[in-house]
């Protein structure tokens, strides 16, 4: 099996307290993978460390055998919706166009070509009528679609998404999942930090259970079982009562 991502011996600490411990993880190409685990399990930290935003204490992440910098342009990212200020003075089209900045490189301004790419991405997420809309006037679901469109613009081979289903309406949730499936069907790899255990089996084909350490990782039908879930969520319960 070809691996899109291989994480090796990764340990991350905040203020000397480990938040991720000795992570070894391989993500095959072309899967739609969920990272699940209780609050504070380090799910977001894991993808941020993989994407070089957080420096690990030890360990490394390889994308198709190469370091992050070499593969950066093949990697798309959707941050948590709440990580930005939606009152920023800009409109929908402008935010989506930001997906082209990485390809443009330093100093170059986006032109007609970049605008067109952004418009096509907006079409894909059903947000074209909102292109000129102020981002402060969007609902939660619409904000999420804008972020997805921006990631589509990156035209990456692997996408990392931090809680894309958080606080969106049912319609948007369905739209997102069908988009993710479409990405998978054209050979992209999608890694999603996910909260809702109910939908894991329906939405994903690969899953990683995380609670500071990797509890299990593999095909959903093999590893998404009660035993592993207990392991992932139990330590939290224990701590509450200790």
């Amino acid at each position, binding site marked *: 099996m070809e691996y899109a991502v291989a994480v090796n011996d990764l340990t991350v600490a905040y203020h000397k307290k480990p938040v991720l411990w000795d992570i070894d993880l391989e993500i095959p190409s072309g899967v739609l993978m969920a990272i699940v685990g209780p609050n504070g399990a380090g799910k977001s930290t894991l993808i941020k460390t993989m994407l070089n935003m957080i420096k690990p204490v030890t360990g490394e992440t390889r994308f198709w055998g190469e370091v992050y910098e070499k593969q*950066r342009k093949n990697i798309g990212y959707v941050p948590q919706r709440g990580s*930005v200020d939606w009152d920023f*003075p800009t*409109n929908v089209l402008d935010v989506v166009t930001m997906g082209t*900045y990485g390809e443009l490189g330093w*100093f170059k301004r986006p032109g007609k070509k970049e605008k067109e790419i952004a418009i096509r991405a907006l079409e894909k997420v059903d947000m074209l009528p909102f292109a000129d809309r102020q981002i*402060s006037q969007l*609902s939660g*679901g619409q904000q999420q679609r804008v972020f997805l469109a921006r990631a589509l613009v990156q035209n990456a081979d692997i996408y990392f998404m931090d809680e894309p289903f958080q606080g969106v309406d049912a319609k948007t949730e369905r739209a997102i999942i069908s988009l993710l499936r479409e990405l998978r069907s054209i050979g992209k790899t999608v890694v999603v930090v996910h909260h809702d255990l109910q939908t894991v089996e329906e939405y994903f084909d690969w899953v990683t259970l995380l609670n500071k350490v990797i509890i299990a990782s593999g095909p959903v039908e093999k590893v998404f079982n009660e035993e592993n879930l207990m392991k992932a969520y139990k330590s939290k319960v224990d701590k509450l009562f200790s």
Partner: protein
Amino acid sequence: MSLINIFSDYTLRTVALGSALLGAMSGVIGTYAVLRKQSLVGDAVSHAALPGIGIAFLLTGSKNIEWLLLGAFISGWLSIYIVNIIIKHSRVKYDSALGMMLSVFFGLGLVILTYIQKIPDSNQAGLEGFLFGQASTLLKRDVIVMSIVGGAIIIIVALLWKEFKLLSFDPEFCQVSGFPKEKLDLILTTLIVIAIVTGLQTVGVVLMSAMIIAPAVAARQWTDKLSVMVILSSVFGGLSGVIGTIISSSTRNLPTGPVIVVIISAISIISLFIAPGRGIIWRRMRDKKNKKRLNRNIILNNIYNLSTEGNGTQGYSLEDLSISKGDFNFPINTLEKELENLETLDLVKVKDKKWYITEKGINEIEDFRGGLGE
């Protein structure tokens, strides 16, 4: 002194031009500070510049403005550097670290200034002018330096336009797009420090932060576009520089720097109130309108619920409507007034003192309910 004197009085012209340049450049750079929620950075840097001025004087023994401002630059920059070290290696929050540096550096600055004043025979007079600024001491040379600095800031902001925008809106995405957050942050912070240091002579360490924050806050009220915000902010800054200079020169004993700050603060306060869309007055009006619509829809919803529970053609008297659904009870006369309003909108009709919901009313309420689900 009249307006015409601005163009004939050489000193006044120099001061006005210098203040305008200062207002314009701090307006540009302040936009980013405000959007990144780092308004306090300006406050910390400007206060932290004071010990640098004192130390530069002690080392060089001269009041040569270039040396003093170099000292201000170094100590202002150093304060931000220390803030970053503190938040990286401790659990102290960003604003606490800034506040701490502000008072530590400013206190140190006051100590050094007091010490200098006690040195016999030293040519120290005037250093305390940096506390509140001494715009009248601006020379042509200073204005030339200010234009160069201002020009450089504008060129850098134009060159790094999309990078700064991305950094301000979404630093994480900026990082993964291949623009290192730390580097851009360093450039932007350095520009803020430069703008502040340039303004110390005019406005002084205590009030300089207002020149960074106020124009941007005012500009944000009037536009939803970053480019317009940057331009407006610099116009507001520049304008208050000129107006402040004119006012202070037309009256005896009005210090220029503080007057400029009062003008720009007035512009922001007015903007906070009257700007369309974001202004407080506008928002109040919109809330009132929304509340009115909500009141109507509650009543409409009541009739709708009663009608759908019944067979759909029933009419209801005022008494029926006032006692139904206990959550929102209106006094009978308010209810009647609202119903009459609804009737003029064709949402309900009245026959024999009984109220019926119309087709249009049903559509309206179903739309409204749909909107709530979104």
